[in-house]
């Protein structure tokens, strides 16, 4: 029998970036907020022994324990879905800060084109540029409407960058801190892309170029370029993360309480509202019902979708009929790129997660697609994140993968190879979606989330096009051998690709084609807000966090307004 706890103004499920932003903004506005986090408390103090590639990068110390809960995966509806038994393709977060603790810090604003992709694509290329199998839709919010919220996140995080990309949406203010160091590796890319006629600029980074105090009074230190960023927490408090910014901001108001080891298993619906959430204390085994005026789901793409599904809130998407919106438009990203092998030794082991330079000449609709069989594109970057020795064993194609020749080559190339990578946009397809698995369960007895996903013809065409561009850049950089990434075939759950999963709880201007409205308020329950990259109707050519955070800030404003006046925000 679950114990019912006293009602609060807002209960937030999950304490990563989105949950932290909502908690901070609502608590500052005087609302009483409880944050339920199924993982543990952790912070900078716990990251002093973080330079351990094996523990953190290989064995995923900071990430979700998939023994307890995972997803099932299949490439199409005809295949039986099987559990993802080990994490690999994407790395789900866990604990205070969520994946905002072990992110790299690339902080982008999606393009104006992204938010109105359906309208703008149809206007320029006609309504049949992609077949009707691709479920393109506008987001219900424009870049201009989001701009103040993008900046709010830039300020909270102290983003280091330079407003020198000729293509991106207008920035009302410059970056709060100057860009990171232009290292010799970055300069190779800068020189090559300039000589090819492109427009390189420093990647906007949440690894800060100088110490910074944000408007809430939180201090973020200066990045030391130690080379342990992605998959690690920052021992210096120099990579902006929820646990050093929005969480302490929420806590110091006195209006915010956190509960750890609190795994939410159900959102309780009653009529056209929700009354709270049911959670399990995974240490004591006790069940609680936390009642709240407003429920906010902020537990990543997968768990947000799953909680709505197991709680029977909204209509499950059915690819056969096209009906339903929950689980629809699951997207991922593709990663075209090139590897280059050089003669000179470079300081490849130094770096920071978001130390990089980028060109956007082939992102969004920045180039003409009239004669191309795909839309959108991707941001092409060189990043110097710090090669670590277990994960980085670069060998040219045709080299044996073990034995004497492997050893010699992988050691030689470790300090003599570079990669150019792309965050390639991903368009929604009617056959790519999330639903509940009917066979496999988590340790709490709930069904696992099921992912039905494969790459599309659009993905394959885009991948091939961009890969050729990156090969040319790498040649221009002076590599002796250049190898483009192999063409993509079927999506494979094995091998790390990207933790940029999107969709499933998408936003939009109409309940006919979306789960939440543009304030991320659920169409079927006015006091339920669902926040995260799950809101993206498609995935753009950038890392998602900056856009997720802007949407969260705008939603927080909506929640505060709703708390005063009630009703639909649209």
């Amino acid at each position, binding site marked *: 029998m679950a114990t019912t706890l006293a009602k609060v103004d807002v209960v937030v499920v999950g304490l990563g970036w989105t949950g932290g932003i909502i908690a901070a903004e609502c608590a500052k506005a005087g609302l009483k907020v409880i944050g339920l986090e199924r993982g543990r408390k952790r912070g900078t103090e716990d990251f002093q022994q973080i330079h*351990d590639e*094996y523990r953190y990068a290989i064995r*995923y110390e900071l990430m979700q324990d998939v023994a307890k809960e995972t997803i099932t995966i299949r490439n199409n509806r005809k295949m039986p879905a099987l*559990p993802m038994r080990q994490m690999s393709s994407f790395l789900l977060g866990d604990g205070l800060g969520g994946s905002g603790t072990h992110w790299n810090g690339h902080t982008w604003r999606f393009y104006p084109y992204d938010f109105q992709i359906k309208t703008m694509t149809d206007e320029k290329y006609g309504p049949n540029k992609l077949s009707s199998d691709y479920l393109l839709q506008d987001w219900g919010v424009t870049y201009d409407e989001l701009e103040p919220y993008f900046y709010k996140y830039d300020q909270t995080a102290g983003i280091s960058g330079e407003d020198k990309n000729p293509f991106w949406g207008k920035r009302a203010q410059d970056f709060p801190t100057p860009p990171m160091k232009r290292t010799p590796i970055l300069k190779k890319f800068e020189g090559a892309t300039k000589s090819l006629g492109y427009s390189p600029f420093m990647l906007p980074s949440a690894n800060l170029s100088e110490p910074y105090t944000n408007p809430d009074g939180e201090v973020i230190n200066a990045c*030391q370029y130690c080379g342990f960023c992605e998959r690690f927490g920052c021992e210096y408090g120099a990579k902006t993360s929820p646990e050093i910014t929005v969480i302490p901001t929420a806590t110091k108001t006195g209006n915010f309480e956190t509960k750890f080891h609190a795994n939410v298993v159900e959102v309780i619906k009653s009529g056209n509202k929700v009354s709270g959430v049911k959670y399990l204390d995974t240490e004591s085994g006790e069940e609680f019902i936390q009642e709240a005026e407003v429920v906010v789901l902020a537990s990543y793409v997968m768990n947000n979708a799953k909680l709505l599904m197991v709680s029977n809130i909204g209509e499950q998407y059915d690819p056969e009929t096209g009906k339903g919106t929950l689980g629809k438009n699951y997207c991922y990203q593709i990663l075209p790129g090139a590897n280059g092998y050089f003669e000179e030794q470079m300081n490849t082991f130094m*770096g920071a997660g978001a130390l990089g330079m980028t060109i956007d000449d082939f992102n969004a609709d920045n180039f003409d697609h009239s004669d191309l069989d795909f839309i959108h594109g991707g941001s092409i970057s060189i990043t110097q994140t710090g090669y670590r020795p277990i994960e980085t064993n670069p060998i040219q194609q045709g080299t044996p993968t073990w034995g004497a020749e492997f050893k010699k080559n992988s050691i030689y190339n470790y300090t003599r190879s570079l990669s150019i990578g792309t965050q390639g946009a991903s368009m929604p397809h009617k056959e790519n979606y999330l639903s509940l698995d009917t066979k496999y369960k988590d340790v709490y007895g709930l069904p696992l989330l099921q992912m039905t996903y494969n790459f599309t013809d659009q993905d394959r065409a885009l991948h091939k096009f961009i890969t050729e561009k990156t090969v040319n850049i790498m040649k221009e950089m002076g590599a002796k051998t250049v190898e483009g990434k192999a063409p993509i075939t079927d999506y494979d759950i094995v091998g790390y690709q990207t933790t940029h999963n999107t969709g499933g709880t998408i936003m939009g201007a109409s309940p006919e084609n979306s789960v939440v409205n543009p304030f991320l308020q659920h169409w079927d329950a006015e006091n339920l807000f669902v926040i995260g990259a799950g809101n993206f109707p498609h995935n753009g050519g950038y890392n998602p966090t900056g856009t997720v955070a802007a949407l969260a800030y705008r939603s927080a404003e909506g929640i505060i307004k709703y708390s005063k006046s009630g009703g639909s925000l649209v």
Partner: protein
Amino acid sequence: MTEKPKNYSRRDFLKTTGIATGALIGGGLIGGLVGLNVDKDDQHVSDTGNTNHEMGTNGGFQFFQNQREFNVISNATERIFPKDDIGPGAIELGVPYFIDRQLAGQYGSNTKEYMQGPFAVGAKTQGYQSRLTRASIFRQGIAVLDEEANKRFKKGFSSIEAEQMDEILTAFQNDEIPMTGVTSAFFFRLIRTATLEGAYADPMYGGNRNMDGWKMKEFPGHQMSYINVIDKEKFQKIEPQPLGGM
């Protein structure tokens, strides 16, 4: 010529980060690295069981049941990452001990992996679907390596020639050897991956002895900061540091 940068002091570091003094916790010890004798000339270990000293084995076993199992895995990892003129191979780096420790712990028991049934083979794109833990796969795989050597060469795996070992390992890699509940290709990938992990993980895990894996690769290990050297054009040769050595 590469220059050796001046050591970046903790005080300099604290100044540039603005981090509060005392927030950094040093500590830890380098355990078990010193005093292990390794015969630098002969890395090949026979299966007579009397030659542990060649591999610097004062370590004892946490997972392997006998010297024969240990020797099989030692020889397999050495073929994957052999001693050469660049530096030591898997055995001298302590990789077999690294694997032994890992198999005895969470890695071997798959404690962070979803191990609930029902189990099915699945498509390649669906990844690992075995009901076996890594510990079970290694135990079975080692036995099958020995059986295959006996079948082909009438000797145990650790008594055959290096080229013969390569032939068998290649057959595993190409999924030509029957195993139960797992494929030989998967077992091969496990050994290969574990070998690289043991060669390059921090020495506190029992491999990468003397940080020789890092020294070969010119990876400096645990360094507090590169802020003063990252914009230098020249390659920086930096003395490696282990986590436990701060």
